[in-house]
């Protein structure tokens, strides 16, 4: 059976998420590999989220925001495009093909474009095959639990591990 890549998509509420909704209402069909996580602004997307998604088994990460100049929060996406070039190079240095990470400006009216991007991205990832990371029996570090203020930066193993996450 061919490999079905898993794509985590961080979408801003006002443009790209709405654009994806439009693709839905317009019944534009696209690959089922993308799983959207809604944030209010692409500026909310902490590079750690992207890396965490890869660490947790995503084969690709897609980020969507408003076109620069159209940001609902005036210039939230400015911070996004300031960070993303570094994220790309960070991935590169960690040996992750940068084609596995895309950030796109998709407006609320570009449902068709959202679909096209997902299809194209899925095809690229199928070409690359599953992402193979490490590991000689290393447990993925888990995000810290803020309620646990004294933790060593990385909470004790499996702090947030859920049974379904280990397969």
């Amino acid at each position: 059976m061919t490999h079905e890549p898993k794509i985590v998509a961080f979408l801003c509420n006002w443009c790209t998420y709405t654009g994806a909704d439009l693709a839905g209402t317009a019944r534009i069909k696209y690959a089922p590999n993308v799983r959207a996580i809604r944030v209010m602004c692409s500026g909310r997307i902490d590079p750690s989220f992207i890396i965490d998604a890869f660490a947790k088994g995503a084969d690709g990460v897609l980020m969507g925001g408003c076109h620069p100049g159209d940001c609902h929060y005036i210039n939230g996406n400015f911070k996004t495009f300031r960070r993303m070039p570094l994220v790309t190079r960070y991935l590169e240095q960690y040996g992750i093909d940068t084609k596995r990470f895309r950030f796109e400006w998709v407006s609320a009216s570009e449902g068709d474009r959202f679909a096209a991007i997902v299809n194209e991205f899925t095809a690229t990832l199928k070409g690359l095959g599953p992402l193979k990371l490490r590991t000689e029996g290393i447990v993925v570090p888990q995000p810290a639990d803020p309620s646990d203020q004294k933790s060593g930066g990385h909470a004790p193993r499996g702090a947030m591990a859920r049974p379904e996450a280990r397969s």
Partner: protein
Amino acid sequence: MNKKLGVYVCHCGTNISGTVNINELVEFARSQPDVKVARDYKFMCSDPGQALLQEDIKKEGLDGVVVASCSPLMHEPTFRKACEKANLNRYQFQMANIREHCSWVHTDKVAATAKAKALLSGALGKARYLAPLPSKKVPVNPATLVVGGGIAGIQTALDIADSGTKVYLVEREATIGGHMAKFDKTFPTLDCAACILTPKMVSVGQHDNIELMTWSEVEEVTGYVGNFKVKVRRKARYVDEEKCNGCGICQEKCPYKAPSEFDHALSKRKAIYMPFPQAVPKIPVIDKETCVYYKTGKCQACKKFCATDAIDFEQKDRIEEIEVGAIVLTTGFQVFDASKMTPYGYGRLPEVYSALEFERMNSASGPTGGEVRMKNGQKPKSVALVHCVGSRDRRFNEHCSRVCCMYSLKFAHLIKERTGAEVYNFYIDMRCFGKGYEQFYQRLLDEEVRFVRGRVASITDFALDENEKGKLVVRVEDTLLAETRRIPVDMVVLANGLEATADAPMVARTFNISTGKDGFFIEKHPKLAPVSTATDGVYIAGACQGPKDIPDTVAQGSAAAAQVLSVLARGEIEVEAATSEINEELCAGCRICNTLCPYTAITFDPVKETSRVNDALCKGCGTCAAACPSSAIHAKHFTDQQIYSEIQGVLYDARA
């Protein structure tokens, strides 16, 4: 922590169940940790559907609800209300979008179901860490600021003030009235602009609830909807507004003259002047450049004759601070500078006029007393009206200015009426979309005004033959006759386009809104929120939002007034509860976040050496939280932990 979550899967008729295996999804939900109940229903948004989760909240004591149905943009408010009715905080509700993002866009049932599981497990992941947030309300200051005293600002100010609430009207010029005050007639009804405008100007001047601030500009705006603080620069007028009674003797006596801005230099005004006789307020201003006193220290004619001793040569600018609950921008437009279009010879050929110059020429109170006259005093025997000057032209403004066709028709009529001259309209397309506009066009056709379809190439005073001698020759390709023509005329009137004011970007920054590619202010939604902006409590009306004729401008002015009044009427407004918050225990005061907030909600406390979020200003974009290097900033309802858990959730089936 131990959560009690309820999961509700919606069939949405067959919209979802047609593609997603509902039973499998419900079973999956049941298998998930923390899930107390999992049900499905045909239409979750229906009353019985809502009742379903409300009962569970009460019976099972759920502290988190996940509905897998349509997009949150569709029904999140519905379900949030439902939860609140059952005493579960609205922020403890989470939605999984398995319709727009799943059943409607996929065909393969197996794949769609697998994805639905991922989206649901993501929602559960987030729900595990959802926390209740209290809704916050702030009182609204009942005063309003209107910026710009053109017809839009006048309309807005009057509508609001008539409702009995306070309005500050700030105008940068010495008088209100804006462009409309320069017009003679208005299309298509041809009623006199002054007759309909001046009464409104007067009632603004006299209104008990309107505080008029002319010769003033807004310097700085802080605060947020309901509670703005505004700094207004009252420019030195050199005339004491309290003392002056507007008798006008100073103007009479002043010996020095300068070209009149109001008449576009077609006439002269004094060094101390009111722009035009019907000015409101009736208080003159001294033009320092022209006034001889500031050069020699001599003269003082105005001071000598002023009965109320209102002249104050030493007056200085002063800053006035006002507090308002809402702001309406009606800063209007500027006309395209035709001298940029060299082939039309504006500024080079004396008989080529701009539209506003021609408006003044037509005005009874204008330089020629309403007579259409050439510089030599003669009536023109033929006049050319050139449309789309600086509009629909990629080199200058791509947009259509919407009013030029109509005011050119108005000009055509006035010229015919007053001179009987032959009138040519050179147009690309006639755009007569408004009420009564097309009829007006027909009427002009019947008045035998000439219409030549084609963009004018150039205007020259070079004559090729006798009948071109002493005339202006309009060279144009007549696209209906498919030939190039040379049409000699006595006078040319250019239909200058409307464009955003040069300082629009600066104004936008001051009021924290944005401008579009064409330079005009951007409305919140082009169709459903035409006078709102991305900044709550700041509204726009009239030509500052895009070229508009008077009816549309007035309509928008009233619309903005209605928006403002609905805010004021509420007395208090709910502010976003999902804001950012800084844990001062962890904030080391690195000040990374200080410059990031587009709403200046983050301020630095030099004493505590920590930053703090003003959550009334915060719109909850979360940009600061993403940047905070010590995780001291906590983006409520989109916390790191909620998102990490959601990531884990959507990857439920991935190898870790």
